[in-house]
């Protein structure tokens, strides 16, 4: 199964590098969202829980964009049928898509967080390290699992692009809660407080439960 996963991941990454569809769109979206927040909130600098909230909501919405695109080529160009014909374990597609979405999210976040620090954040990012990347990575894992599940579910329905945000956003709310609460003290203006382990535990628990659940259930989504 590992070679199948590697082959699928390579295919998706090559396709993305050649056509540049998902990641640039997600990046542009995050930058525009920061601009929107600047105008909507009428503030040019944010800190603390407000900064944390703005960052997380933007990342979540950008992730939804990525989820929309995840299975589209599979659907339109017969990738599902080709995969079903191959003599590999079907969860290989699940693992591959999770890895791909996770990769997209990490790339987007590296640029988006830097942009956020430059554009809107008032205290520097220095004191937020290494807590912020840790929280982001944990949340990305959860978002990747949810995104793969919801993307696979939605791609076969009629109202594909509408179903994905409707399903993915409520499912991602615990991640948002834990992530925003975890990073709020890190981005505070007057001295960053320590990262609370409680939120990391929630993120980790959520990731594990959903990863196991999605792993168990994904086969049924691919049957013909």
């Amino acid at each position: 199964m590992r070679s199948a996963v590697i082959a699928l991941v390579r295919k998706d990454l090559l396709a993305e590098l050649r056509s540049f569809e998902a990641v640039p769109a997600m990046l542009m979206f995050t930058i525009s969202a920061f601009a929107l927040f600047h105008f909507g909130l009428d503030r040019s600098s944010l800190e603390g829980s407000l900064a944390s909230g703005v960052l997380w909501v933007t990342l979540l919405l950008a992730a939804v964009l990525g989820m929309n695109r995840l299975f589209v080529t599979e659907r339109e160009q017969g990738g599902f049928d080709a995969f079903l014909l191959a003599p590999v374990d079907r969860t290989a597609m699940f693992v591959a898509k999770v890895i791909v979405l996770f990769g997209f999210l990490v790339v987007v976040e590296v640029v988006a967080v830097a942009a956020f620090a430059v554009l809107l954040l008032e205290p520097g990012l220095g004191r937020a390290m290494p807590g912020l990347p840790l929280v982001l990575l944990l949340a990305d894992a959860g978002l990747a699992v949810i995104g793969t599940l919801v993307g696979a579910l939605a791609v076969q329905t009629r109202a594909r692009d509408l179903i994905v945000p409707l399903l993915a956003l409520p499912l991602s709310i615990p991640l948002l809660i834990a992530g925003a609460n975890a990073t709020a003290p890190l981005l505070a203006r007057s001295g960053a407080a320590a990262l609370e382990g409680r939120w990391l535990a929630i993120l980790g628990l959520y990731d594990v439960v959903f990863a196991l659940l999605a792993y168990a259930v994904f086969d049924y989504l691919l049957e013909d």
Partner: protein
Amino acid sequence: MFFYAPLEIDQGFVQKIFYVHVPLAIVALVGFVVGGIYAIRFLRSGDRAHDLRSYVAIHMSLIFGVGALLTGSIWARASWGHWWLWDEPTLVSFLIVFLLYACYQPLRFSIEDPERQSRYAAVFAVVGGAFVPLNFMAVRAAQSNIHPRTLSASDNLPGPIALTFLLCIVAMGLLFITLCKYELAAKNTRMQLRSLKRRLSGEAPLQRGRSAAPQEL
């Protein structure tokens, strides 16, 4: 129910809505999880009856959820909310779950193929059923920074109120089960009627078993 429990001091008669609102919410959440359990059984066995039960359980829980949200807002407007456990965070987490399951039926009926429809709906029900407790924990954890949580509502309730409350939860649970059985019976009867009609008119009987999807032929 209304006359057995004594009047509560702070809120007076309005507090009685608590006997309706809380059981509605609890039964709705349990119903969602039960829908998930039936969905797991459907995925493992392929028996359409489980799929139908899962659909009915979630459908009924949605209706109960609407009732819980409405009675909750009536109660909130009439009073400030008394026990810590039943204020904002629980309301928010319930709303999130409700929004998620409100997409169950649109998802279900936007897939034409009945087999695939049942399967996808079952996957969604399983994920949603696992999500309910996780979401509850996450939202509760988010609020404990601000208010210290009291242990549990039943510790705060004096005798007659606790008894009435328990009775109401049991009653609401039984109501849920009754309504589900009623809806299941109605659906099954309708399907049997349809297959009889089809046989009478000479058409070939559909090979498909029972499914919650409206048959198009």
